[in-house]
């Protein structure tokens, strides 16, 4: 039986001096899914991705990517044969032309697909003879994607792939990712753009201050998560903690509860507190993200 997870980490930590860039990260990323990796600037997304790829050494903990130990140099090297990575700044060798960059990358992968290379070169309208230094950021992103996708990667890891792209380029990028997932690739991408994650991801992980605070399928968010707004005639009760309620925010006579499960039971209980109004609304990923990271 094949492993259902393409990424598994346990207590993965990275400390720089006194700062925990990543703390006890236990993360699982399922195969053949698109997983969005959200977090504020400096939350530890890039550091954790670099640890997964063997670029940064963990201070503690460990993990596997495609079943290969990320702390083993030899296994990490073997794993990178099957993983495509698009870095945050999408910098490629400025001194090479597009054609030379493709030829250079192709030489490292025996499973390179020339037909995909040709199709993507046409689709992305990449000028073969132009130097990489003369490409726009959008073009560089497309070239980086081509270099990743032309080799049938089992896992595609992208760090802020839409950063600096115009809306048309973002749309093309998202379509490319969905198509790659359709071909069986697993996709793990970090982003600040919640709308993008919400649009294409099957699952979302939220990292805050180096710690994983949310890890759930987006279907579950849509089905189970509700924001319950209670209005009280007088001062609301002090302690509204109960099973199924993840977060509580009180503002004057209004209390907002973020319920993640057993919403009916939660409603039954809060109605017992005799609020003057009870509003129940679905929660968007944006709201969940803000609730999570702002409170932290």
């Amino acid at each position, binding site marked *: 039986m094949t492993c259902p997870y393409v990424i598994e980490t346990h207590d993965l930590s990275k400390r720089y001096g006194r700062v925990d860039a990543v703390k006890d990260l236990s993360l699982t990323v399922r195969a053949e899914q698109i997983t969005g990796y959200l977090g504020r600037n400096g939350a530890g997304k890039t550091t954790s991705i670099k640890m997964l790829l063997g670029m940064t050494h963990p201070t503690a903990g460990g993990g596997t990517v495609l079943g290969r130990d990320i702390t083993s140099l030899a296994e990490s090297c073997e794993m990178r044969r099957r993983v495509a990575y698009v870095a945050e700044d999408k910098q490629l060798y400025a001194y090479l032309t597009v054609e030379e960059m493709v030829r*250079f990358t192709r030489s490292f992968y025996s499973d390179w697909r020339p037909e995909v290379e040709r199709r993507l070169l046409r689709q992305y309208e990449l000028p073969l003879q132009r130097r990489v230094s003369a490409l726009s950021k959008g073009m560089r992103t497309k070239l980086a994607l081509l270099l990743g996708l032309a080799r049938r990667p089992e896992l595609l890891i992208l760090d802020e792939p839409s950063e600096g792209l115009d809306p048309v380029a973002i749309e093309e990028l998202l379509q490319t990712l969905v198509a790659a997932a359709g071909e069986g690739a697993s996709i793990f991408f970090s982003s600040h753009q919640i709308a993008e994650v919400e649009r294409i991801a099957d699952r979302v992980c939220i990292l805050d201050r180096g710690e994983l605070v949310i890890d759930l399928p987006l279907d579950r968010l849509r089905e189970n998560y509700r924001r319950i707004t209670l209005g009280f005639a007088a001062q609301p009760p002090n302690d509204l903690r109960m099973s199924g309620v993840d977060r509580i925010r009180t503002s004057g006579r209004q209390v907002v509860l973020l319920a993640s499960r057993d919403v009916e039971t939660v409603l039954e209980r809060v109605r017992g507190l005799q609020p003057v109004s009870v509003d129940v609304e679905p929660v968007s990923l944006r709201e969940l993200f803000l609730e999570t990271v702002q409170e932290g």
Partner: protein
Amino acid sequence: MLWYKAWRESRGRFVLSSLTIAVLCAVTVAFEKDAAGAYEQPPTYDAFIWQSVYKSGIRELFLLLAILLGLGGLLRERAHGTAGFTLALPVSRRRLLAARAGVGALEIAGLSLVPALVLPTLSPMFHESYPVSQALQFSLLWTVGGALFFAVGLLASTLFGGEYTAGICSVAVLLAYSLMVDVPGVEAYIGDVHDVMSGSGMPYFQPAMSRLAGPLPWWSLAAILLIAFVLTAIAAQLTKRHDF
């Protein structure tokens, strides 16, 4: 393809270095008569070439250029933002460094051959001659000496990420070493690579003719290469441990 990458990264520096050495050698040959005329007792052509090219300024410049060729690598790539792409390739950091060292060694050998091409070729145009065999033997000595300072540059590049820091530190090492080997008493304990490269005061050099004579110092050359190899191996270990 890693060798191709290393070559593309350094070829500008290599071409510029080669041109500089070539032009300086050509100028030395072209103005030999004028320069030699300034001496009370004009030196022989061989002595003039040895003094001007193999013993002093151009040799020192060659060592500086060897350091320059050793600079670069993953820390500089990190500064340029390409380290992520390079490190995501399915190759070990050791192989990346080995490719740089290999290309660098070839470039040092190529650079040291420049005087051997220019001096014997241009000398007849100015009614002089310089033996190819002499020039080639000096090239071999330069290659080995250059390899050592190339390795110093390589190691400094794995220690310091700043744009100029590695270069400045390497040049400081070269200067400190050059001063140290001239301190009386110290010279006996530290071999002088400059002298090995020029033959100055060495048994394989005949000062009267300003020519290399006798077998080259193979053990000294092997020892210098061994030190260069050790410095490269240290650089490889440091690269393996770096976080990018």
